[in-house]
């Protein structure tokens, strides 16, 4: 049986990015803490800052502006299909109001220097978005909203070259993360970033592109095996004409829409894209698919069909109310059973955000946060493909595990981190030299250990390591490790004792779990 403190910490890890010492000290019941989290997440604060706002650095150069919306041969064979393609209809989507931006040069028409300038500008915006969000995960009171935004970020996985389009999608998700899934699905489906990523900009009456229709069903709603190839073709016809304009706004291009009769999932009609999504939501299978995915993310990687069935039915009946589903999940007795506590491998982002949050950790320069994400295999805004990050044991291989175990020493004891990153940002800056990809340095940080100290104030020194392990770890510590940690602490000078204990605990395999 788990103690109340563990249950409370469990809730903070799963529904947010980990407990702070003061959360534990407050000693709320999990139920009260959940209510507080729901309240704290009511407000929507968009992710935004001047550094995140991408500005087109090439405005001074010759613009190329072909007629928007016209099918061109270049549309289909453009060099970077997943890149927000330059010189064509270009979504400029950001939370800011000043959406219209001057058109870009086509990439193939740029000089090396122009490309470099553009790459740098794109990269800077992505870096600011990435580290800004990670910091927000660690500090925002709206833990539940940020956690759900993170979940949907992996569910509606999307990777585009334009930072403004990516940010706009991210904020749309943030806005609707806790509302009705139907609203979220429709809004995401109409986001320029998604329409671009899944080629719906090229989906026209005369020449349908099925990519978007297929992924909506396979990955976003029903899952494989619940629709036929004909359903994909028919749905693709319904989505013809869905696109975006030069201002980065959704547009319905009526002349490119196929308004003829379609037969989709057994029903026939002159369906629009909206109607196809509505039919998808009428399938109980959709509620089951989403409930399963939420369960695997928030409860246990191994789904329990009995639990999920109850959740899915209620989710369906509620008209896809996400908050209601979460509340049901986080108040269920089984949620706090030992089988579900400390048994999920943290994703790299959860690991980093968790250390930041529980230890009040800040970096003098945030750039290494990007390096860590890449070395560990998960970079925000850069999912591997539309299926998102696979998660679970997939996070762990020999090298990623060693990096994970080294990380606490790097963050808390100024140890050096040394890694040559792969060319995984190919679409932004594909030709980096090895020196540019190599990170080898100490990382300067500050931590707030006083609240942790306060948590231990009434615990006698010999029991502090054990008490601290109960706060830091969700999985029970191996007895032999407690000895190792106690010995390391005993060797450390008095003023460094706590830091040494924390660092060692964070370096354990047990800490990889939540």
């Amino acid at each position, binding site marked *: 049986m788990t103690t109340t403190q563990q249950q409370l910490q469990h809730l903070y890890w799963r529904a947010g990015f980990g407990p702070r010492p003061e959360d534990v000290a407050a000693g709320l019941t999990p139920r009260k803490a959940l209510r507080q989290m729901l309240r704290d997440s009511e407000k929507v604060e968009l992710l935004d800052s001047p550094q995140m706002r991408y500005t087109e650095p090439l405005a001074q150069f010759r613009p190329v502006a072909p007629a928007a919306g016209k099918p061109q*041969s270049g549309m*289909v*064979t*453009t*060099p970077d*299909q*997943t*890149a927000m393609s330059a010189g064509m209809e270009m979504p400029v989507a950001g939370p800011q109001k000043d959406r219209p931006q001057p058109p870009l040069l086509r*990439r*193939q*028409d*740029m000089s*090396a220097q122009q*490309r470099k300038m553009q790459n740098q500008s794109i990269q800077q915006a992505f870096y600011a978005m990435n580290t800004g969000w990670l910091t927000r995960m660690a500090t925002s009171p709206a833990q539940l909203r940020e956690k759900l935004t993170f979940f949907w970020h992996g569910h509606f996985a999307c990777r585009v070259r334009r930072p403004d389009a990516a940010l706009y999608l991210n904020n749309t998700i943030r806005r609707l993360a806790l509302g009705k899934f139907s609203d979220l699905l429709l809004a995401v489906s109409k986001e320029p970033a998604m329409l671009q990523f899944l080629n719906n900009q090229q989906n026209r009456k005369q020449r349908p592109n099925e990519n978007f229709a*297929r992924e909506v069903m396979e*990955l976003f709603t029903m899952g494989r095996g619940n629709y036929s190839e004909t359903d994909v073709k028919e749905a693709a016809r319904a989505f013809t004409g869905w696109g975006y304009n030069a201002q980065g706004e959704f547009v319905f291009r009526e002349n490119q829409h196929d308004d003829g009769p379609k037969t989709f999932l057994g029903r026939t009609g002159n369906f629009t894209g909206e109607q196809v999504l509505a039919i998808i939501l009428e399938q109980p299978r959709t509620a089951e698919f989403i409930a399963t995915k939420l369960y695997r993310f928030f409860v246990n*990687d191994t789904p329990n069909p009995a639990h999920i069935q109850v959740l899915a039915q209620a989710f369906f009946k509620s008209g896809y109310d996400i908050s209601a589903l979460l509340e049901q999940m986080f108040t269920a007795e089984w949620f706090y059973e030992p089988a579900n506590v*400390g*048994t*999920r*491998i943290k994703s790299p982002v959860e690991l980093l955000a968790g250390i930041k949050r529980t230890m009040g950790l800040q970096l003098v320069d945030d750039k290494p946060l990007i390096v860590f994400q*890449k*070395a560990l295999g998960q970079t925000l805004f850069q999912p*591997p*493909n539309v*299926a998102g990050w*696979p998660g679970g*044991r*997939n996070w*762990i*291989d*020999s*090298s*990623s*595990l*060693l990096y994970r*175990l*080294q990380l606490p020493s790097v963050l808390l004891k100024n140890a050096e981190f040394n*890694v*040559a*990153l*792969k*060319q*995984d940002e*190919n*679409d932004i800056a*594909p*030709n980096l*030299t*090895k020196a540019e990809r190599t990170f080898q340095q100490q990382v300067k940080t500050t931590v707030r250990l006083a609240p942790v100290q306060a948590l231990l104030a009434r615990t006698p020194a010999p029991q502090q390591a054990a008490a601290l392990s109960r706060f830091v770890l969700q999985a029970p510590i*191996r007895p032999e*490790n407690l*000895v*190792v940690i106690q010995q390391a602490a005993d060797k450390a000078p008095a003023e460094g004792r706590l830091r040494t204990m924390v660092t*060692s605990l964070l*370096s*354990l*395999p047990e800490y*990889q*779990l939540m």
Partner: protein
Amino acid sequence: MTTRRDFLKTSVLASSLLFVPSFLHALDRQGLKDLRDSRGRRLVVVQLGGGNDGLNTVIPYRNDLYYKARPTLGIWEQSGILALDKDLGFNPAMTRLKGLYDQGQLAVLNSVGYPNPDRSHFRSMDIWQSGSASDQYLSTGWLGRYLDSNCPSCPTAYNGLEVDDTLSLAMKGDLRKGLALKNPGKFHQLTQNQFIAQVSRQQPAGAVSELDYLYKTLAETSSSADYLYQTSKVYKSAVAYPNSEFGRNLKTTAELINSGVGSRVFYVSLTGFDTHVRQQEQQGKLLGDLSDGLGSFAEDLQKAGNFDDTLVLVFSEFGRRVSQNASNGTDHGTANNVLLLGGGLKQRGILNNAPDLQNLLEGDLRHQLDFRSLYATVLHDWLEADDKAILGSQFERLKGLV
């Protein structure tokens, strides 16, 4: 101050620190035996990241259409094209690969690709590394699944080695994953951190829970690092390699192979091929590095008698558009050539038709050969593995290639 010795004496951990768990000792010798029979053969995959321009690598220098599409980017015969067969020739920078070709140890496959090609670097690389169709998303790689399928009981991570700091998708299976290391010394050092060393010697209780899985991975990593470090001391290469990152990585690979390390699959990358501008110069430099590196690698393995058992597969995520662009480069294209090297090739030279420049699909080459047919051939005929299980469906194999 306690000495390490005192610490060991007094520690309740002493027994587990001094005695490496027995299953870790045994694996050093068993690793290879557990791999299903591949007659000692190994595969080395060389990834050219960035989309290498295949038409300026294996050049159709007698085809007018080539020069018409590339008036300034096309490479002319008089600049030193190294003539092969079927009116094709190597880029002038590829002298050592030409040497291997002449010795019958190199084969070229033209126009390798897949239906509905994706021109994004990362997505196309994802497809090549996972071995998926273009509308399919796999979270495992084709070589990782080879390790899964051929060595479910292998207790080691080093049966697949990537010479790099982080592991590629290609080497990740569901059950088994390869191991990434820049060099055995550096990797060993990482596991020698006192704290990590202490923890990594703890036995997993089983391999059921996530925690056991973490301890098992850590123990394997540490044991593999020891094994690789000790074993690779046996052989130090005397062959000169190009002074480049790629050259050094190939040298490390050759040293691991010639030391007798029990790995079946090796993975090495050469990046920088996304040459939209100043393409000729940049690509020439990279192809020179590729050619010199692989030339030295072949020589190294030949000297040690290991080249006959080695197959090298060189690929890139896509080729380039046939026509040059406005800045004297080429944009992302589709089908591309694949090079195969090794002493055990049964067919040498140019193995299929030259790229068809007349019959393009919106300016791009149509693929003649699905890359998964090539994977199936390598898996089944070379590594003697179950290609169908690994690739998820049956792809027609190339007869008598390896």
